[in-house]
């Protein structure tokens, strides 16, 4: 389609052409008839149409002829058309035109048909045209040709659009028709009233140079929707280019187009454009309009920074208009806030627009200068002699208002100005009232998303001479409105749409999602409908009389007041507190609930506990602008100034009080008054015996009330805390206890458990707390807590083991899992459990009587353990054994009969398995074996001796003697055990320790031997180290062993035991 010939000719001689055709017509046609000329002017496109109709000519001669013909015909046609229809000139009516033309010029019609049908013909003709390109007349013809093409395209478009909007066009045509008639009449009258000279001038002006005007005629008339691209239009391809180089590329293309114009390889594109820019989404691309993709490759080949071969894609027709969409930059208004981009020193600083030039391209702004008055004036030349690169800012000086004094001090010469007006010129910059004032191009201003903060703005406001704050709310509003920071609407807000299609709609927000607010329309025709509207064009709507609260954005934040006036989105309210009128934006308001204020005043915020005087404390229940309302411990409310508050009492998280029942109550517990109004609330403060409670059931005093701690009962303790156990867990605080768990019965459990906790998977009932009575299964345990899956709620809670009561899965009977372990485990379990308890019993007893002996002999491994009562792993076991045994003895005994042991028969075997088995185990082969073996190794001879002796104590009539005794008399046995418990009296080692005793013994024995013995002992005891232990063991072992093996038990049997075990035995026997 786009042949080079016409392009060249058309481009080159366009103005000539333009003048050529119409001018003769105008001139020749009607000298006097202004009206006709008028029409002629108006109808220029029609002329084109005519030409178009006549244009398809086979060759130059014909064309020329035809041209003449056409010229002749034109006036006639025109007048006729005037009569017919004034509107025919419009491109959109060209079809009609064509019809008329066709009627009139039948011979041409044929040709046109032919033209339409045979595209090839046309091309041929074109070729001829090209041959004749150097004839003047050809230019004219070309123009016609071109006109034809252009109009032809227009036709296509119209067809295209016609189908879509048949009515539109007809309507607009008719409307225009009327309008034009009237306009014409008016002009005629007006022109008639002017004198001839003026008329002539007007005419000359109007028609002197017509080319541009003609363009305008076209532009003004055709609405954009008729210009939408069609398939006939050239396509647009997006071509990747280097970011930031878009403009250069376009200019390069321009250059190429011009350079190759008129040559054989003209650039075959019709247009190219970019929509780059730092923030543009279209950066990195240029868009090239051409008929074929290959044209672009040709056109862009070799141009820098553009990559047609790597990345090029076609823009869809429907997207084409969007490529050229232009969004208006909002005009700057004086007073608006902007941010500076350009002077690097001030980049990002807030500035206020003072004035804007008429064309809106430059603004005079004021901002707070950053001057150092030459303090950091570094020399222009750096040390290395290179000029410092400008625009590389060091640390920039802080923002400070201009100080004349400082400027004068430093650079008196550079300072000129007028103290009266407080305007200065310093170093070429202007300063007024301390602000720097400068003309800045708007491209160097950040106009959008300024988001001036209140602090920044107030700096400007307080700069006023008289000290008054003259904030221009309107300007601020305009600035803020543009900001991306959207107003937060919450469901329930009454919202008005003030912009866009749904302008005027009022509704209640039901949903807010991102920028889209869903409105339930409450007024107007749409009432009841739900519509989605963008956040942007919305504002909150209030009515006069509404009680509102300022929620942000202004210094009136947190004021509460009544709306007295609404102008657009500015709302004036009368504050409750000070009865002054303030004006804020509706977006900063929210319907106020009457519950006291939120927020804070200075360091004091709502619900804080404050000290009013030495004896009075109070809880802040309302915060006003300058005062707070306090509910004191006596239940009185008083309004106080912050200055009257002595200090704020920090929240004591661990403050504890006792409720009426003596249960511990703490912060966040829910309690109820026992008497009186039986108010219930959550404890927010505990102060001595007063507690401040917060309830949501009343708004009085912000829901806060005060009562005495001993007048409330616990409803629910936070976190289901066991309210029965008053006071902190002292045992956990006592380091001694921690190190010496022997003294603490509670901790006995630990050594008992091997492998998985037996509690796991047990069915339990919760005995205390919020979940009391619920049944569950233990899923997991720690030492102290269990995680219980509740049957009822299907959730897992963590609860102290102490609060659990274990149930048999089937029978539901309360059981003891430890005991259960025994029975469940059958032999293994029984063996283990029993072993543990049983074994120790005798050991304890054995220990008690034999301690020194054992200690001496086993000093290697055992000694520290023994010594260690406090830390040794054994000790608890011992203690445990000794002490635990009792209950289990007692309790197990019957069970023994009932369950596992029942099978075996009497308790005795149980005792066998229990006490005896471990006993030998312990003594002979168990953990102690090494000790013994060690002993036996070195003292081979003695081992048997020991063996012999060992049984003695182990079996030591005592242990066995009373053990069965314990078995025999249940009750007595229970008390029996204590004996070892008594033995337990850690004293055991102590007893051992009462080295004096052995010392005493040893003394009588050989002196040399005796000496080492205690020494060895001392060492062993004192160091308590496993390492050191062996040594004394080695030394000590033999010595005392020698003594004890035979004599000790025998000789001391009574004597030695007496101190340790005597009381116990005394009890027993």
């Amino acid at each position: 389609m786009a042949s080079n010939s016409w392009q060249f000719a058309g481009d080159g001689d366009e103005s000539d052409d333009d003048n050529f055709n119409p001018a003769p017509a105008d001139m020749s046609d009607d000298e006097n008839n202004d009206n006709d000329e008028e029409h002629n002017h108006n109808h220029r496109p029609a002329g084109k149409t005519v030409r178009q109709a006549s244009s398809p000519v086979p060759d130059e001669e014909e064309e020329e002829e035809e041209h003449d013909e056409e010229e002749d015909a034109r006036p006639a046609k025109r007048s006729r058309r005037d009569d017919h229809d004034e509107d025919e000139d419009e491109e959109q009516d060209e079809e009609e035109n064509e019809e008329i033309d066709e009627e009139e010029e039948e011979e041409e019609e044929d040709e046109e048909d032919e033209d339409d049908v045979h595209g090839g013909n046309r091309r041929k003709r074109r070729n001829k045209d090209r041959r004749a390109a150097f004839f003047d007349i050809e230019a004219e013809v070309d123009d016609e040709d071109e006109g034809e093409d252009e109009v032809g395209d227009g036709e296509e478009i119209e067809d295209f659009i016609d189908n879509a909007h048949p009515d539109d066009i007809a309507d607009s045509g008719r409307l225009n028709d009327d309008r034009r008639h009237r306009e014409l009449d008016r002009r005629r009258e007006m022109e008639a009233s002017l004198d001839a000279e003026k008329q002539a001038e007007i005419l000359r002006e109007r028609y002197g140079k017509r080319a541009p005007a003609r363009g305008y005629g076209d532009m003004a008339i055709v609405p954009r929707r008729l210009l939408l691209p069609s398939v006939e239009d050239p396509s647009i391809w997006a071509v990747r280019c280097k970011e930031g180089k878009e403009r250069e590329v376009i200019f390069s293309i321009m250059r190429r187009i011009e350079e190759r114009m008129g040559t054989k390889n003209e650039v075959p594109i019709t247009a190219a454009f970019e929509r780059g820019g730092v923030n543009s989404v279209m950066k990195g691309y240029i868009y090239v309009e051409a008929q074929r993709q290959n044209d672009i490759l040709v056109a862009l080949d070799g141009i820098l920074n553009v990559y047609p071969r790597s990345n090029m894609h076609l823009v869809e027709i429907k997207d084409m208009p969007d490529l050229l969409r232009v969004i208006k930059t909002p005009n700057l208004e004086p007073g608006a806030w902007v941010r500076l981009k350009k002077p690097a020193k001030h980049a990002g600083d807030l500035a206020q627009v003072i004035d804007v030039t008429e064309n809106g391209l430059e603004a005079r702004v004021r901002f707070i200068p950053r001057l150092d008055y030459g303090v950091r004036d570094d020399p222009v030349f750096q040390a290395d002699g290179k000029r410092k690169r400008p625009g590389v800012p060091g640390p920039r000086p802080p923002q400070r208002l201009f100080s004349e004094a400082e400027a004068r001090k430093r650079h008196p010469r550079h300072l000129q100005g007028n103290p009266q007006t407080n305007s200065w010129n310093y170093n070429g910059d202007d300063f007024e009232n301390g602000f720097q004032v400068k003309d800045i191009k708007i491209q160097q201003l950040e106009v959008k998303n300024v988001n001036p903060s209140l602090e920044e703005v107030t700096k400007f406001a307080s700069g006023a001479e008289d000290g008054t704050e003259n904030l221009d709310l309107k300007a601020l509003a305009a600035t803020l409105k543009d900001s991306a920071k959207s107003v937060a609407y919450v469901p329930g807000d009454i919202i008005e749409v003030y912009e866009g299609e749904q302008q005027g709609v009022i509704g209640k927000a039901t949903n807010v999602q991102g920028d889209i607010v869903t409105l339930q329309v409450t007024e107007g025709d749409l009432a009841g409908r739900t519509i989605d509207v963008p956040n942007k064009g919305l504002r909150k709507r209030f009515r006069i009389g509404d009680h509102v609260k300022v929620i942000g954005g202004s210094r009136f934040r947190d004021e509460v007041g009544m709306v007295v006036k609404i102008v657009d989105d500015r709302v004036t309210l009368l504050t409750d507190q000070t009865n002054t009128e303030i004006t804020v934006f509706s977006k900063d308001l929210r319907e106020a609930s009457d519950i006291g204020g939120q927020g804070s005043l200075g360091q004091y915020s709502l619900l804080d506990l404050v000290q009013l005087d030495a004896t009075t404390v109070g809880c802040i229940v309302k915060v006003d602008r300058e005062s707070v309302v306090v509910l004191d411990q006596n239940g009185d409310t008083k309004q106080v100034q912050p200055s009257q508050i002595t200090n704020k009492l920090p929240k004591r998280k661990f403050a504890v009080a006792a409720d009426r029942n003596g249960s511990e109550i703490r912060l966040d517990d829910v309690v109820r008054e026992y008497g009186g109004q039986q108010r219930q609330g959550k404890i927010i403060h505990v102060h001595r015996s007063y507690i401040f409670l917060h309830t949501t059931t009343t708004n009085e005093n912000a829901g806060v009330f005060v009562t005495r701690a001993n007048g409330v009962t616990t409803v629910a303790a936070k976190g289901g805390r066991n309210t029965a156990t008053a006071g902190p867990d002292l045992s956990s605080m006592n380091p001694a206890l921690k190190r010496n768990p022997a003294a603490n019965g509670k901790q006995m459990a630990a050594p008992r458990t091997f492998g998985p906790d037996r509690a796991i998977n047990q069915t339990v009932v919760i005995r205390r707390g919020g979940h009391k009575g619920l049944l569950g299964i233990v899923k997991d345990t720690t030492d102290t807590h269990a995680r219980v899956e509740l049957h009822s709620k299907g959730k897992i809670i963590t609860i102290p083991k102490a609060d659990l009561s274990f149930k048999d899965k089937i029978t539901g009977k309360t059981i003891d899992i430890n005991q259960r372990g025994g029975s469940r485990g059958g032999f293994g379990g029984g063996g283990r459990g029993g072993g543990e308890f049983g074994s120790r019993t005798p050991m304890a007893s054995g220990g008690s009587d034999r301690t020194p002996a054992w200690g001496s002999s086993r000093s290697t491994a055992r000694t520290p353990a023994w010594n260690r009562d406090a830390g040794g792993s054994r000790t608890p076991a011992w203690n445990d054994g000794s002490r635990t045994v009792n209950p289990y003895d007692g309790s197990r005994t019957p069970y023994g009969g009932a369950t596992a042991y029942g099978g075996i028969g009497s308790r005795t075997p149980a005792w066998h398995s229990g006490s005896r088995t471990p006993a030998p185990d312990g003594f002979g082969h168990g953990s102690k074996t090494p000790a013994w073996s060690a002993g036996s190794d070195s003292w081979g001879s003695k081992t048997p001796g020991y063996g012999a002796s060992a049984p003695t104590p182990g079996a030591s009539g005592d242990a066995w003697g009373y053990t069965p005794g314990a078995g025999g008399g249940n009750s007595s046995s229970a008390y029996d055990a204590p004996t070892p418990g008594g033995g337990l009296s850690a004293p055991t080692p102590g007893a051992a320790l009462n080295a004096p005793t052995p010392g005493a013994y040893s003394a009588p024995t050989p002196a040399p031997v005796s000496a080492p013995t205690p020494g060895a002992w001392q060492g062993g005891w004192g160091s308590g180290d496993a390492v050191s232990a062996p040594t004394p063991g080695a030394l000590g072992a033999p010595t005392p062993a020698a003594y004890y093996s035979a004599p000790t038990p025998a000789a001391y049997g009574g004597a030695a035991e007496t101190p340790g075990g005597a009381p116990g035995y005394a009890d027993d026997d």
Partner: protein
Amino acid sequence: MSENYVAPGQQRYLRACMVCSIVMTYARFRDEGCPNCEDFLHLQGSPDQIDSCTSQVFEGIITIANPQRSWVAKWQRLDGYVKGVYATKVSGQLPDDVRTTLEDDGIQYIPRDGSATEAD
């Protein structure tokens, strides 16, 4: 030949006509005037007029190789203008008196700053 080409170094002097959006250097506006609007803007040789009727703030450069054929030109209402470099958007407003002149001349002024685009 390539009169419309502007070297990158010179692009800072570019201005766009607020009426037709053509982009040229200040010097060219001064020496030649606006090729499309000279009749009523009279930019040639009058810096004041150039200042008020052309703008340094413009975006989206378009090079129009063929104003008649190009859809871009048509859409931007540049068909009928000379070929050259145009801007998609020209910020700034024509002075009122110029506007009045335009109206008197029967020329419908289309603001190029985006304020009138989506009206139709």
